[in-house]
């Protein structure tokens, strides 16, 4: 089944010091503070005490350099994202007045969350003491102090921070940002070129000209859909602030904030939580760009660092949102929207990403715990799209099932909001242009306390999330579809059927929905109706062979599972229409193997693997075809590939065990069978097979245990019964 994903690839964030000012009324803090306005030391009549204060006041070497190195230099170094360097005393002196203004107003370092309303990691907010140090230093005419006591400046390598990446993706063509005009939002598509799946433990983005990049956000386009929408333009980047991409045909929710800002160029995921790239995926690099005054060329590249370990934990992104309620009258300085969401599972909140455009002012997110207690998750009193960011909690925030997440955003569409893109203000609604608005509060959550054997808890989250969207926007097709798909994923097929039928009322000829409804009916056991729906979907696709691939595949699979002979012809029709459909090729090959046509099967499977080398099922079936034709070594090699791709699949290990046994490697066969049973303990056949292998190697007590285990799981298991009887009669 397919699923549509609605995700903000969203906008803008934070730079380090980008804007500098020196208001006329603050010449007292200028490069040449007037003596009368310097600290009290210089004032007449203050006397000795003031002189002592002056001498013991902050110096660059003793006090200020360490503050700048810790809080500013990440961006403000030569070649960094900041517009100037702050590594030397001369630098600090050059920019001292602006440092004071920017830190006193807390414009810099960029950090929007209010302290005490969410305990975040990597807080960039200066302490009052640090701010005061800078202020006192500037007021005292920026003394250098003793250079010998100055800390060593941090070093910044022009190369990749984490060493050479395993894979570097580059934009297809450099993009030239004009020197003037308003900010630009552009989406660059970077196809993932590899033929196998990789897990990504870290990512670094090098924008090319970091000084003009406010922030970047990466969305994974699992289907390459956006690239196909812009076949002639995608190499140049696509204008736009937000995107909606198609999430493909399996439940695979977005799981990570792939958010870049100038002070965190390398994004390292927590242990056990890498993200995944499959062949055919695209990365969409969404950048918020600020003109510098001259044309700037951006030649962005993304460095990826792999890990061989698949994720041990499966986080998910969910969001509260009220785009439907955004209809902000011109001049309204206090327009409020709310949303809430009751958690259906226990979970940990790992991070939060508030998002609005230029009218957003006050952004709040909190949780009401089951005991009624209010727990703040984030509060931004003065929203600024230019400095937006993802905020990660220092420790995961544990929230129990029944907790209610809340957001409340306040917008200012008056002329006093200096960020207002319209002058005079106009009525503003939701939309993906920068002059439209948005109301989103994204969370990265990790479900916990999951019962063994329970459905993926993210499905329940998805269902609740989509129901929440439907409550606000009844009839929203994306929500209806995703809700139905989640229900189907949870095995609630009857509910899924009803939800898909509801969606179908709105668009009765939608190929995808007809196909998904068929799949849900199949799950509910209504396979004849399911097949009717698949046929309707094929009819609805008309001459569009590509969109008929899915319903044809589902129809053929259904026919195959129900023993209908039409399955072979249906698969052949599909393969003819969709020759690159690896699943169809594999399905057809499966029928051919059953019909003892291993030569044709090998041919189709070889094509399937060429199309998708990471398709484990194709390797598994190719092993069967080879085994059928007597090529046990070939079978072994394919099963080993399948086991690499699907190490947690008991069937593959079981298959390996059988082929190894056939080649005489009995002990290895026993090991593989044990591995299979570790993954699937209640497999009576598996225990019986283990018993046979152990009996063949003379391990009689172990074999007896295995047969007895099989019989405990299935007291009527005929082979286990006879094998146990035979074993006991022989010994």
């Amino acid at each position, binding site marked *: 089944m397919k699923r549509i994903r609605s995700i903000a690839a969203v906008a803008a964030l934070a730079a380090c010091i980008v804007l500098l000012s020196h208001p006329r009324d603050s010449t007292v803090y200028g*490069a040449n503070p007037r003596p009368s306005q310097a600290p009290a030391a210089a004032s007449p009549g203050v006397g000795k005490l003031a002189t002592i204060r002056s001498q013991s006041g902050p110096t660059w070497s003793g006090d200020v350099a360490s503050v700048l190195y810790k809080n500013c230099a990440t961006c403000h170094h030569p070649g960094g994202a900041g517009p100037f360097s702050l590594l030397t005393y001369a630098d600090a002196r050059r920019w001292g007045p602006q440092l004071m*203004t920017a830190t006193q107003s807390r414009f810099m370092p960029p950090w929007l969350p209010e302290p005490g309303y969410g305990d975040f990691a990597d807080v960039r907010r200066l302490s009052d003491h640090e701010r005061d140090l800078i202020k006192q230093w500037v007021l005292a005419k920026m003394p250098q102090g003793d250079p010998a006591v100055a800390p060593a400046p941090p070093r910044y390598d022009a190369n990749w921070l984490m060493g050479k990446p395993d894979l570097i993706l580059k934009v297809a063509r450099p993009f030239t940002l004009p020197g003037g005009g308003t900010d630009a939002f552009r989406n660059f598509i970077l196809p993932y070129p590899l033929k196998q799946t990789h897990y990504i433990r870290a990512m670094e983005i090098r924008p090319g000209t970091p000084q003009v990049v406010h922030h970047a956000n990466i969305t994974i386009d699992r289907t390459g859909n956006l690239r196909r929408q812009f076949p002639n333009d995608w190499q140049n980047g696509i204008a736009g602030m937000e995107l909606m991409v198609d999430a493909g045909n399996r439940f695979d929710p977005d799981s990570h904030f792939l958010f870049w800002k100038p002070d965190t160029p390398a994004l390292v995921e927590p242990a056990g939580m890498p993200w995944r790239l499959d062949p055919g995926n695209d990365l969409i690099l969404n950048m918020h760009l600020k003109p510098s005054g*001259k044309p700037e060329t951006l030649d962005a590249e993304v460095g990826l660092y792999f890990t061989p370990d698949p994720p041990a934990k499966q986080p998910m992104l969910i969001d509260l949102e009220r785009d439907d309620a955004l209809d902000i009258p011109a001049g309204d300085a206090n327009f409020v929207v709310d949303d809430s969401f009751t958690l259906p599972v226990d979970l940990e909140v790992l991070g939060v990403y508030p998002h609005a455009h230029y009218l957003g002012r006050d952004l709040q997110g909190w949780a009401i715990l089951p005991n009624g207690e209010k727990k703040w998750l984030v509060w931004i009193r003065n929203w600024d799209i230019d400095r937006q960011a993802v905020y990660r909690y220092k420790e995961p925030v544990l929230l129990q099932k029944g907790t209610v997440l809340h957001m409340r955003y306040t917008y200012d569409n008056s002329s006093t909001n200096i960020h207002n893109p319209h002058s005079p203000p106009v009525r503003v609604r939701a939309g993906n242009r920068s002059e439209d608005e948005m109301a989103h509060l994204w969370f990265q959550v990790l479900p916990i306390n999951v019962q063994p054997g329970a459905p993926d808890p993210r499905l329940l989250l998805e269902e609740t999330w989509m129901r929440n969207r439907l409550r606000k926007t009844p009839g929203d097709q994306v929500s209806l579809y995703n809700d139905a798909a989640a229900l189907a994923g949870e095995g609630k097929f009857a509910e899924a059927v009803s939800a898909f039928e509801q969606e179908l009322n709105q668009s009765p000829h939608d190929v995808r929905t007809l196909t998904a409804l068929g799949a849900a009916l199949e799950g509910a056991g209504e396979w004849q109706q399911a097949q009717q729906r698949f046929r309707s979907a094929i009819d609805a696709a008309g001459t569009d062979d590509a969109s008929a691939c899915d319903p044809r595949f589902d129809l053929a699979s259904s026919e195959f599972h129900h023993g209908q002979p039409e399955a072979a012809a249906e698969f052949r029709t599909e393969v003819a229409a969709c020759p690159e459909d690896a699943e169809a090729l594999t399905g057809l090959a499966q029928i051919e193997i059953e019909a003892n046509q291993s030569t044709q099967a090998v041919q189709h499977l070889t094509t399937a693997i060429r199309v998708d080398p990471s398709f484990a099922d194709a390797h598994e079936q190719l092993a069967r075809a080879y085994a059928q034709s007597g090529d046990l070594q070939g079978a072994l090699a394919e099963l080993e590939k399948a086991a690499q791709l699907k190490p947690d699949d008991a069937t593959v290990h079981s298959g390996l065990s059988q082929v190894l046994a056939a080649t005489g490697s009995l002990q290895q066969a026993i090991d593989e069978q044990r591995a299979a049973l570790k993954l699937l303990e209640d497999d009576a056949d598996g225990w019986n097979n283990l018993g046979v292998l152990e009996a063949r190697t003379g391990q009689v007590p172990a074999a007896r245990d295995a047969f007895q285990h099989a019989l405990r799981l299935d007291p009527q298991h005929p082979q286990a019964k006879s094998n146990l009887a035979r074993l006991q009669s022989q010994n």
Partner: protein
Amino acid sequence: MRICLLRITTLLCFVVSACALLHANEPYGLNLQGATVQELGGPGIRVVVLIFAASDCPISNRYVPEIARLNREFTRQGVRIWWVFPNPEDNSSTVAEHNHAFAITEPTVLDIRQHLVHLAHVTTTPEAAVFRSSGDVLREVYRGRIDDRYLSIGQERPQPQQHDLEAAISATLADKPVPQSGGPPIGCSIVSLQK
């Protein structure tokens, strides 16, 4: 050529007749070839505009396209716009490189002794000063921000709503009262020559 220094205190400052003659025999600065700049106006020039800038100041640089626009708009109406670089680090090679990178075509003066800074009473880059040019007298009629895009550090409009400099030039050309700056200039402090 004389420069008439006015403390701008009223909206009708241009009618104030008191002025002081300073540095009558001193050059204004150097051009990028190292030659002295003796004249900012000249025949046919009715308005002289000085844009104080610094090659390393981001806000100053972001105004390059706007100044180019104003130059295109006013150059045939007897307006001469100068880029003035007053900071000690902005020597001829630095500024030449900068102007090349930003495709600056307007005339440029290196204010190596900061005479122009003092004459125009500016403190910031970017900051504009507008002079009515009459005979050999330059009378300052406007000093301040270019527009209201920046309100303070970190307070930036998506686009300006009030084009202060443009309005000042237009008013000067039309012999009308020159509207004064609606807010302080925002940018980078001009660096003192004193170490």
